[in-house]
């Protein structure tokens, strides 16, 4: 239990997808113009991560890892399919994103319209693929830990995008040098936010 809580807090604050690994920066910069849309996208990303990370965990553990097929028959014990990891993960992610897209279109058409092209592009959001790859690298002990990691890193991403959207809504009224307006200042603000997130380093529950 402690371990799970630790993974959760760590994945939100210390290993934050945006501030520590720069994953999902493209949609982070492009969609963060209003708080409302960024909240919607953040929730969609969190949801997709919560599903894809444990599913990919099971796939990697029971199908792809070296010797993972031993449960089928002992003769398959030395089969190593780990080179298929990337293609398998991206296929799972793309199909789950398709599912989420259909659900959002049916139940929240307003959100669907405001997200526009970025909803199908969640499939190529590096934060989601990144969460699955980090999950594999960290070798979690069971599927619950993987799910909590997925949830935590999704929430971390959500926090980051909502925070920058709120700042960008306000900053429209300030006098920024013309060449820095928009993108330039967004990068520098993210840098400063990342510095403040560094203060969480070393927290352990």
């Amino acid at each position, binding site marked *: 239990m402690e371990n799970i809580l630790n993974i959760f807090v760590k994945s939100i604050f210390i290993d934050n997808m945006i501030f520590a690994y720069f994953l999902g920066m*493209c949609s982070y910069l492009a969609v963060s113009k209003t708080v409302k849309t960024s909240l919607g996208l953040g929730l969609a990303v969190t949801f997709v991560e919560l599903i894809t990370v444990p599913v990919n965990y099971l796939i990697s553990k029971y199908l792809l890892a070296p010797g993972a097929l031993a449960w089928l028959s002992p003769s398959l014990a030395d089969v190593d399919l780990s080179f298929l990891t990337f293609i398998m993960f991206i*296929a799972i992610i793309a199909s789950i994103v398709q599912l989420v897209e259909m659900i959002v279109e049916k139940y929240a058409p307003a959100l669907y319209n405001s997200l526009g092209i970025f909803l199908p592009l969640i499939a190529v959001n590096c934060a989601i693929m990144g969460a699955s790859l980090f999950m594999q690298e960290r070798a979690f002990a069971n599927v619950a830990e993987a799910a909590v990691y997925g949830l935590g890193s999704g929430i971390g991403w959500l926090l980051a995008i909502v925070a920058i959207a709120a700042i960008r809504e306000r900053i429209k009224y300030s006098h920024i040098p013309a060449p820095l307006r928009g993108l330039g200042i967004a990068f520098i603000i993210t840098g400063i936010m990342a510095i403040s997130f560094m203060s969480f380093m070393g927290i352990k529950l």
Partner: protein
Amino acid sequence: MSIFSSTTWEAFTRPLGKDNPVTTQILGICSALAVTVQLKPAIVMAISVTAVCACSNIVISLLRKYIPTSIRIIVQLVVVASLVIIVDQILKAFAYDVSKQLSVYVGLIITNCILMGRLEAFAMSNSPLDSFMDGLGNGFGYGKILIIVAFLRELFGSGNLFGLQVIPQSFYEVGYMNNGMMIQPPMALIIVGCIIWFIRARHEEMQEK
């Protein structure tokens, strides 16, 4: 350049100059920031992305008339993922240290927005040769930014270039210190912000209102 028509040549040079994928089109930033602590992994990453981008552009451009539009994203992902697997296996075989340093970011080439962006915007509607040059140009444009950022971070962060010390020892003796902040993630963001600032100050038409 007589063998190339002018559009082919333009497909190559545009992303190198004003239409840079990272600073103008805002694509592929994720990996651009994470691998730039040192020059060596940055250059390996730039070469890998260029290779995958150019090859996937050719493949998709050759297939473009046969791909049904409704499943094109999946087809593109499969092509890119297969190429990335090849790159990953090559790196593991011939440059194991660098491949360890790049860790998950090799796999993340699949989700690099430059690739999907160029496939959607260019390869789906242009000839294979043009697409190849476009992929090459975008790869180099991406590499250019990567190398600038990595150069600054390695030089000021650890006083090295390619792992060799370039700042003379006598500087350290009179009190010069490496800027430890440069190695940390936040500085990468701030450096890219400053590069965009610099570019937009020179090209006024690119400024946002």
